């Protein structure tokens, strides 16, 4: 545990406008696709139109003869040089992990896989010629539905012999962190409450705004790769590990990157193919995808069935939670594809004191686009299911959703709290965040309005949704990752260079793509070293400039990378101290450092740290044996995660005649520990909220029975617009984290994790008097309308108040109202 530092701050907490903005608002940005190199060639991909097919032959003659075409490559042509797409987290030793070649030569396993690459003088010519490549396929049966895949009747990869990739379990009894879940459920069946539900996490597309792009210059001693990636350091590692290029010969640059949301933490077939071809031709090459290509080839997110069994006493005190997860990996196990659903293992129990817990996760291969991290990665899925089922418990007990949470959550005086899943929550105050949220929301008034509308039979009903979430941030303690067989560590690195003329270069291994690191890092260093915010330059995203790093995802940059920064700054101060003492002719022990000045205690003698930087640069008068540098590096490996939390409240108006849901109000109070820059934090919250709300209401990657992604463009994959959304009320409580010096917890994913269940809980709350207890996401007007119609028909037949359905042995959910949703085969 790290004590939170209480030294005075002037920059931390200030709503600094971002340093990044100037180039972005004037169009002077360096996106990868903006890069032009002399002699550069352009690539276009030929992609499979089939979900599963044998490649019988590929005719490239016509394409090769087309104007401006330099070459056409098939998988066979690249076999010796293309490397392989890696899985960094085999969740079990016997995980089934089909080989994922960037350009396969024998068989394609999902629509959109690359089968040939055309290289031409311009992108347009390459694309024209790609149309001329003649591929002969033999279609194979494709397995598309997750539950069908479990039967192993049709195999996504026939050679693998099964679609089941891995099974992973966390059991509180076996782990010694809690009781026996089956025993507790059996007891509750006798004298308590058992709630059983199955929830669907639909497949989503991360839909970052900048399509992915890669430029490769193979002409120098080092191969230089620019890529629209979140993970330049991991990409460099993967290239060296699989393509036979020494790591020292690889330089990866992530220039300005237009969003990622997990969607760019992949090492991609497109990157590997572009590198292999540029090296073969000895010419700079660029590949920029179209949006339609992004949709089918960049990894998707979510896609789970979640079977939940919650046991409680009659008064609503929870006694056990059992989770059975089916998670679709798509056609291949992506870089952390298997691990994403497993992250839910520590999150389904959330903020509640379950005495017994079991998490079972089965990952499954299908012939769909691969699945990996999407904002929240495992945690939104978990939060959705637990927050939905806690509302069901409240309904069963007959109390307000807030009351059932209060009864079961960890109270503020119980922190640090070790959960039934074995995680130790650092700090938090659920009571305080909830109290603040209820007040801002006007909860009681809205409940009164809901009652009025119900009583008057208003055709527009009001529903209130609650989500009291927590998440784990700061990925990740390397030892924990090691114990989970993850293929890398979770540390982060920072360097500080004290320049002679008084400015400071900060090098960070975290690699932003919209988060504002340049601004926030400047604030932290300015405070720590007592230098002006403007005098700090933050460098990142280039493995030559920032040689060490593990990049940006999992709300880790500030919590892990920020602490590395603090430690590097403290090393600078320690290195400067003997030089200061020497120049001040004082003892090191008599020196104090504050606001950029070393002073001799009890005197007015002092010297600034930038003066020491200049004196060190000159090196004319340094103490004996002291090196002429006060620059410092630090690598920080967290000892534990941090656990931000918050209370999100959503009011939805549901038109019972049309099924249309309209958001009336959304309030969130997030506790993310210390806030470095409130402006940036608000931005992260707003954007996160809308991504989570979009899952609840609008988005879904839908396939037809042939395995074609029918929501494969922005026409059909309905991202929210300004006209679909509202303004949000976002406030904070502050329980500083105890796992890092700054007390920060992470905020990048909070909004997305919390908001989805808040919205669906609100819609279900509006409709619960009609006997509706679930609507499958996205809660489109059609689905809501159908649910209302079906529930009305059922209510006419027989009241079902006493029907507390249970899962039969091995049977799917028998809950009658859950059958009101369509799209089960999506």
């Amino acid at each position, binding site marked *: 545990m790290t004590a939170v530092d209480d030294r005075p701050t002037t920059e931390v907490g200030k709503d600094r406008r971002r340093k990044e903005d*100037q180039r972005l608002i004037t169009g002077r940005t360096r996106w990868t696709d903006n890069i032009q190199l002399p002699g550069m060639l352009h690539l276009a991909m030929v992609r499979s139109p089939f979900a599963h097919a044998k490649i019988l032959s590929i005719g490239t003659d016509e394409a090769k003869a087309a104007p401006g075409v330099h070459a056409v490559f098939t998988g066979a042509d690249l076999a010796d040089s293309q490397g392989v797409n890696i899985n960094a987290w085999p969740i079990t030793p016997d995980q089934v992990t089909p080989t994922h070649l960037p350009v396969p030569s024998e068989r394609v396993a999902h629509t959109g896989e690359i089968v040939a690459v055309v290289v031409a003088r311009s992108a347009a010519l390459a694309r024209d010629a790609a149309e001329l490549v003649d591929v002969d396929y033999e279609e194979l049966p494709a397995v598309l539905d997750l539950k069908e895949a479990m039967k192993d009747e049709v195999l996504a990869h026939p050679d693998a012999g099964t679609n089941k990739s891995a099974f992973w379990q966390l059991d509180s009894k076996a782990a010694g962190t809690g009781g026996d879940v089956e025993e507790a459920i059996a007891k509750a069946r006798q004298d308590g409450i058992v709630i059983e539900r199955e929830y669907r996490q639909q497949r989503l597309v991360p839909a970052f705004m900048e399509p992915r792009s890669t430029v490769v210059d193979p002409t120098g001693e080092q191969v230089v790769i620019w890529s629209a990636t979140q993970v330049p350091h991991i990409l460099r590692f993967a290239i060296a590990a699989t393509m036979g290029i020494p790591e020292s010969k690889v330089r990866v640059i992530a220039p300005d990157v237009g969003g990622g949301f997990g969607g760019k933490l992949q090492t991609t077939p497109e990157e590997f193919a572009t590198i292999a071809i540029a090296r073969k031709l000895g010419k700079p090459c660029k590949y920029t995808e179209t949006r339609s290509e992004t949709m089918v080839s960049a990894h998707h997110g979510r896609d789970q069935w979640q079977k939940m069994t919650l046991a409680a006493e009659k008064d609503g005190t929870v006694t056990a939670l059992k989770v059975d997860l089916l998670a679709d990996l798509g056609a291949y196990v992506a870089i952390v594809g298997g691990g994403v659903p497993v992250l839910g293992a520590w999150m389904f129990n959330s903020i509640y004191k379950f005495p017994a817990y079991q998490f079972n996760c089965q990952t499954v291969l299908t012939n769909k686009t691969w699945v990996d991290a999407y904002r929240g990665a495992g945690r939104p899925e978990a939060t959705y299911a637990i927050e939905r089922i806690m509302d069901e418990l409240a309904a069963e007990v007959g109390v307000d959703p807030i009351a059932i949470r209060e009864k079961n959550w960890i109270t503020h005086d119980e922190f640090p709290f070790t959960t039934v899943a074995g995680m130790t929550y650092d700090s938090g105050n659920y009571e305080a965040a909830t109290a603040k949220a209820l007040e801002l929301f006007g909860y009681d008034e809205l409940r009164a309005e809901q009652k009025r509308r119900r009583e008057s039979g208003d055709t527009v009903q009001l529903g209130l949704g609650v989500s009291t979430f927590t998440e784990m941030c700061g990925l990740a303690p390397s030892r924990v990752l090691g114990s989970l067989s993850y293929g890398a560590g979770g540390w982060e690195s920072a360097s500080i260079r004290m320049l002679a003329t008084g400015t400071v270069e900060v090098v960070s291994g975290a690699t932003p793509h919209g*988060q504002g690191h340049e601004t926030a890092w400047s604030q932290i260093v300015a405070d720590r070293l007592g230098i002006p915010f403007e005098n700090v330059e933050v460098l990142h995203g280039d493995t030559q400039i920032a040689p060490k790093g593990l990049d940006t995802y999992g709300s880790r940059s500030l919590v892990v990378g920020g602490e590395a920064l603090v430690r590097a700054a403290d090393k600078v101060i320690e290195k400067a101290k003997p030089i200061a003492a020497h120049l001040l002719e004082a003892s090191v022990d008599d020196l104090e450092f504050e606001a950029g000045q070393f002073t001799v205690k009890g005197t007015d003698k002092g010297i600034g740290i930038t003066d020491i930087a200049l004196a060190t640069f000159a090196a004319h008068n340094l103490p004996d044996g002291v090196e002429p540098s006060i620059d410092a590096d630090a690598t920080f490996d967290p000892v534990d995660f941090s656990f931000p939390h918050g209370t999100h409240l959503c009011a939805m108006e549901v038109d019972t005649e049309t099924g249309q849901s309209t958001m009336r109000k959304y309030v969130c109070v997030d506790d993310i520990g210390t806030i470095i820059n409130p402006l940036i934090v608000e931005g992260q919250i707003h954007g996160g909220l809308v991504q989570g709300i979009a899952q609840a209401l609008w988005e879904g990657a839908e396939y037809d029975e042939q395995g074609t992604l029918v929501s494969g463009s922005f026409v059909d994959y309905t991202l929210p617009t300004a006209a679909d959304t509202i303004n949000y009320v976002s406030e904070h409580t502050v329980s500083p984290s105890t796992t890092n010096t700054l007390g920060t917890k992470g905020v990048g994913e909070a909004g997305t994790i919390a908001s989805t269940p808040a919205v669906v809980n609100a819609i279900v709350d509006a409709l619960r008097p009609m006997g509706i207890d679930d609507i499958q996401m996205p809660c489109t007007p059609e689905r809501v309308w159908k649910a209302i119609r079906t529930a009305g028909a059922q209510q006419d037949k027989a009241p079902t108040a006493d029907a507390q359905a249970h899962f039969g042995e091995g049977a799917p959910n028998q809950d009658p109202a859950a059958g009101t949703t369509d799209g089960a085969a999506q």
Partner: protein
Amino acid sequence: MTRINVTVDGVSNADDVEPRMLLVHYLREVVGKVGTVVGCDTSNCGACTVHLDGRSVKSCNVLAVQADGHEVTTIEGLATNGELHPMQTAFHENHALQCGYCTPGMIMQAVDLLRENPDPTEEEIRVGLEGNLCRCTGYHNIVKAVAAAAGSMSSERSNA
């Protein structure tokens, strides 16, 4: 190839282009205006929005030959004499951008929105930006920025 004359950000250009070339590709690949970006291939995202004779267009939805004899303003030409346009300032002040990829199009659309309606309501701003997608901000601060720009531009006018 077809000969076109297009003024882009105040500079006149004469180029031979393929008749099928989209304006956005002409701007990026021929004129070098890479500040204007491509976000989709279905005219949904609006990232490529520029002004054609002062009116906003999605430059992926206009052929370069259609711009012949016309004037194009891109995000790169919006600031004048080293002074940011009030909309650019408002986006910066209100943290209306994160990754910044949608920003050029969003700003160009917002400028046109205020040209048509100098004093829009929140609803009018939201509807006016409907053709421009942003994945980072949740639109909250974009809407705020456009309202702020409307305020600052109207006080500039009344001071003039």
